[in-house]
């Protein structure tokens, strides 16, 4: 039972926040178990041109990428990194062949730090010296490194209750048959104890996941041993099978996708008609990642400050608790609402998602958008048969080119939505677009502005391009085509820079990182003769031959025409002469002048005049070189 399941008692202001940050009450503890056996260090690709890439490197890359993402987005989650099949050992139980990687000022299972990420990503170079690699399971010895690794992992995950923390172990390995070298009763025994160890961990609420690394010529067979270990049912095995990528990058992308748990926003009921209600889960696949919230610190001690909010009655000055009532001014009086009334106003529908009908896809215009979409995937958890209905509707909508219009009635933000069916799209690197529906938030009439009509001239026809001009434009489009453009191929330069700076400062580095802005146009490509030619052609077609010259002339005439500017400047210059500015600046008398007088100085020297008085003064001081 959720205390406030619909969020109706929350303020408006934070309901929006909620949308972007989703409720993530639970933390996550992850232990990465990385196989470090010599097999992991054999080249993964046979291609000679490529750099010697090993599966070990792939795993390290994936993990450090994940850590970087995590430190930005979910810094409360805790991680531990643990190698097995190592020469050295380092773990609390002092078990052989298991090495828990760690840095200073950090517990083994803890939040990721800048230092951890830095040291971990560069581990490859001296791994052999400091930790070393060797097969942990060899015939003749009863040593079982997988068993040990699972044990260490489980011990690391002992802290925290499973109620509010989800615990996972992720195994990276390329060995599908770790007990292949042993035979007979020993083998049976080892498998049995290992499986029992895994089951014990799972019984404690720890989920074990496998990230198999495979080679094109050598398929990873999950069924040999790992399907039992991670507890896959027979039919699931087929779904789980890693699709072997042709290229190493494909595998890396696949791994990356699987390293994060799917977090649903909520499970909702989708009412198709009055008595047909199916269950669907919603997911936020696309949400803007913003730089984290700031924290106020005491500049002397650098310790965080605690903020205290108090409500004060404006009339009496009395201290209040959070007032339960709100008001809105209306015709010179205040109309008072209770929070209950407000939540009632917002409760326009009792059904979470209700189908209203279908429309052809071309009714969904490009401007019918307000916020990032939400993904919907069916679930049979509470109502059997939901998925079947969902799939049937999904297919029909795709086949008939229709989208569904529905009312999304959550009380925090009830809204009309479009449900657009998305077919599954696969590529060599796995799933590109998952199958399901995307919920697109539609605007209401008051949210749409008729901007086009703003500048209409009465009784005159707007000029249109001629066929020849359109032809030239088409030619240009062909020249400026972006091959293989994919959405989200750019990383956000502002965000990269933000965290780059923080990382550098956190590690105490002096050098600020240089972040490449990937969003710049391809100037080289534009300068290619044929593209340049197409551009020029189009320019002449729409602007005429002498456009640049005309522009320059009109600019010149414009600047000469602005008498007012000239006049303003002249008065400013005259006014400036009244004072000895250097003197004023030296004696700190600038603040005695009026803003208008300060602005005279700025205008006279062609400086910007925007800002508050202090800003103006500091600008003048800089200009005077003080």
């Amino acid at each position, binding site marked *: 039972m959720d205390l406030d399941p619909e969020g109706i008692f929350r303020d408006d202001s934070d309901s929006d926040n909620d949308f972007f940050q989703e409720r993530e009450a639970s933390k996550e503890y992850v232990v990465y178990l990385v196989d470090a056996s010599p097999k992991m260090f054999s080249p993964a690709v046979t291609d000679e041109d490529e750099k010697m890439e090993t599966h070990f490197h792939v795993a390290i890359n994936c993990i450090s990428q994940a850590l970087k993402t995590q*430190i930005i987005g979910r810094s409360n989650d805790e991680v531990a990194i643990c190698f097995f099949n190592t020469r050295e050992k380092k773990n609390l139980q002092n078990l052989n062949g298991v090495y828990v990687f760690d840095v200073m000022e950090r517990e083994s299972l803890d939040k990721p*730090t800048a230092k951890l990420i830095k040291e971990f990503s560069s581990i490859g170079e001296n791994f052999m010296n400091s930790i070393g690699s060797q097969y942990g399971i060899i015939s003749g010895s009863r040593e079982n490194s997988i068993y040990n690794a699972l044990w260490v992992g489980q011990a690391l995950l002992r802290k925290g209750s499973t109620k509010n923390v989800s615990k996972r172990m992720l195994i990276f390995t390329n060995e599908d048959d770790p007990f292949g070298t042993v035979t007979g009763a020993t083998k049976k025994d080892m498998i049995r104890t290992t499986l029992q160890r895994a089951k014990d961990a799972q019984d404690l609420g720890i989920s074990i996941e496998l990230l198999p690394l495979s080679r094109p010529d050598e398929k990873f067979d999950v069924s040999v041993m790992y399907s039992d270990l991670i507890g896959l049912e027979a039919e699931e095995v087929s779904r789980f099978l890693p699709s072997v990528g042709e290229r190493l990058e494909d595998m890396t992308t696949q791994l990356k996708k699987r390293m994060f748990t799917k977090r649903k926003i909520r499970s909702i009921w989708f009412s198709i008609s009055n008595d047909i209600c199916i269950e669907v889960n919603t997911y936020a696949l*696309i949400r803007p990642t913003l730089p*984290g919230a700031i924290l106020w610190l005491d500049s002397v001690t650098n310790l965080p400050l605690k903020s205290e909010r108090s409500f004060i009655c404006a*009339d009496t000055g009395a201290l209040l608790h959070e007032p339960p009532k709100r008001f809105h001014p209306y015709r010179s009086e205040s109309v008072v609402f209770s929070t*209950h009334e407000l939540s009632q106003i917002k409760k326009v529908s009792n059904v979470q998602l209700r189908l209203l009908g279908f429309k052809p896809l071309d009714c969904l215009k490009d401007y019918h958008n*307000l916020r990032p979409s939400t993904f919907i995937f069916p679930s049979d958890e509470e109502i059997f048969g939901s998925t079947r209905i969902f799939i049937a509707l999904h297919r029909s909508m795709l086949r*008939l080119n229709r989208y569904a219009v529905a009312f999304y009635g959550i009380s925090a933000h009830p809204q009309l939505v479009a449900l657009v069916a998305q077919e599954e799209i696969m590529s060599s690197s796995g799933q590109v677009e998952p199958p399901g529906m*995307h919920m697109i938030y539609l605007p209401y009439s008051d949210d749409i502005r008729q901007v086009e009509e703003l500048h209409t001239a009465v009784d005159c026809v707007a000029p249109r391009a001629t066929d020849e001009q359109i032809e030239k434009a088409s030619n240009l489009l062909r020249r400026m085509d972006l091959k293989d453009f994919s959405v989200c191929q750019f990383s956000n330069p502002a965000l990269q820079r933000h965290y780059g700076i923080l990382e550098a400062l956190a590690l105490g580095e002096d050098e600020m990182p240089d972040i490449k802005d990937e969003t710049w146009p391809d100037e080289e490509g534009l300068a290619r003769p044929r593209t340049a030619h197409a551009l020029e052609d189009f320019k002449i077609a729409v602007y005429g031959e002498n456009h640049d010259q005309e522009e320059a002339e009109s600019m010149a005439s414009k600047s000469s025409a602005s008498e007012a500017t000239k006049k303003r400047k002249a008065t400013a210059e005259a006014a400036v002469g009244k004072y000895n500015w250097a003197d004023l600046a030296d004696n700190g008398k600038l603040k005695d002048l009026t803003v208008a007088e300060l602005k005279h100085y700025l205008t006279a020297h062609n400086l910007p005049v925007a800002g508050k008085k202090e800003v103006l003064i500091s600008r003048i001081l800089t200009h005077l070189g003080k």
Partner: protein
Amino acid sequence: MARGREALILLIDVGPSTHGVLPEVESVCSMLVQKKLIFGKSDEVGIILFGTKDTDNDLEKEVGGYEHVVVKRNIKVVDVDAVDILQNLPRGTGNGDFLDAVIVGMDMLIKKYGITNKGKQRLCLVTDAKHPIKAPSEGTKEDQVHIVCQQMQDHGMRLDCVIIRENSSETASQKIIDENDFLLRLFTEKTKAKAIYVSNPTALLGALRTRNISPVTVYRGDLELSSTMKIKVWVYKKTSEEKFPTLKKFSDKAPPTDRYATHEVKMDFEYKSIENPEKIVPPEQRIKGYRYGPQVVPISPAEWEAVKFKPEKSVKVLGFTDASNIMRHYYMKDVNIFIPEPGNTKAIVACSAIARAMKQMNKVAILRCVWRQGQGNVVVGVLTPNISCKDNIPDSFCFNALPFAEDIREFQFPSFSNFPSSWQPNEQQQEAADNLVKMLNLAPDDKEEALQPDFTPNPVLERFYRFLHLKSRLPEAEVPSLDRSLKRITEPDPEKLSECKPVIENFRTQFELKENPKKKKSSKRAWREKSSVSDEEVGADSKVPENGSAKLIENSSPEKVQKIGDLNPVQDFEAMIARRDSSKWVRKAIKEMQDYIYNLLENSYEGNTYPKAIECLVALRRGCILEQEPKEFNRYLHHIYEKWKTTDLVDFFNLIASKSITLISKSEAADSEVTEEEAKNFPVKTELYGDSDSRSQILTS
């Protein structure tokens, strides 16, 4: 009339043929005026009705004619009387002549403001335009429209027409309708006028922009195809969400006699150091810290300014790509529109050429935008052509922001084809779904598209502003329920449903839904299901008859308990449930107590909260018997039992049993469905009673 203010005359047809939609006309027009009371207090409003029984206008007195046109309100600063007039429109008897009304309205504006006033002047015509307009004494109707247009043009007036055409199979002659449409179109061509046709009451509510927002450009400057080829454009917001108004916090501390009390609440923030909570740290001693993992990095604004990302203002085309490459669900934000610089023919032609080429080749452009100098980030987005269908509007582009790599979460989902065959629809089922999708069509060929975003009002805001007005009159008023036209937004159209009944029936018989017996649904679900059966109570579930005696009690009780606190939960609960000023308190008290106990148990550590929880549970039980709400208690007890019976909290239930806290039986409260025997046996017998009926309604198939 100052700049930015608007003079508006509403021209409303109240003739017999409009009576069916007059309630919606009343609401949309009064909404318009209400919003002016809030957002445009100095706007001026006049009201003219036509199709009335009587006649009352200046032109009739001066020159004769102009019958059945009544000036209900002269142009004056907006006030609440205008709302009252609009909410109680008379039903007229004559057939409206919209041209007469337009002329009367225009005459009023000219007389009031003359030619010197440059303020915005607008006429807003609401009519069904089904009846013939009178032929003028000289010239044709067309000539007359030309003259009127010229006049309007000279005085800078705008005309917005909303034409209601509910169903075409009416008695009205098609010839007259065609003629009227032609005249109205003439207006849109010859002057600043707009004609909107609506076919249902819901669309009528959305047809009039009830709030005037003067658009501001986001960017003015070059759209750079390359360093040498640039197009001058202006960028505006095309969509922008109108938010639920932010209400101020209300303080009731001021004495009721204080007529000038603002009732406002000020918020005060204080920052205190953790080491010494007594010490308040002054603002100048604070510094911003940015989190990086567990570390917090302090950076002063000056340092930050020196290193942060500072792109130059510009809008650059990165290139073009196939439209199919950019899927619809990647659109991130509200939408911008790029229009060529007004009056710049070269820019208009260049935009037109690119837009049409994009349309023909099915391409879109990818842009990198920095709208303002000093903006801390860049926006990458997609530009799609927006080909104009009106002759006097230039071609333009829509712009949608796209996500960056960091904004995407790549979760993997199973393929539908990998699901077991029991989850796959068979042929008949697929056909049933196909038929449903086909038949439940909101945009059939022969009819106007229903629920177009452009004509769909926001039901929440509609309801809020209506309630605001109502409450300013009757402070005790209740939240009104959604009326029929707003319900068309939140619920399917019953007409459409009955039309598609066989298809829906077939769909239902084809598919079977069953609840998962392992998962007991939570109480939250049960509540929802019940209400999904009937939506009648939406917004009306707090109907509280207020009477004099109840008020007396309210005034005499010195301190009203509003929530259950941690200190004396039992007393709070008892005080709250005993409140008689509104029946909602009983419900609220029970709910709060349930939540409170729930929390206690959820946070218990080795049973340390059990005594308190027991105490509360006893109080809750007592309260539920007293208030005759046995089901509330029984369901709750079942619920927590179901939830925790397998966890270590199970010993709490043993404790309950030992304290002989049982379900409430019939003998204790008549409403209970639990016999004494069953009550005693709990928690051994664990069937749910309360909501089995609602479940069956959902799942009957």
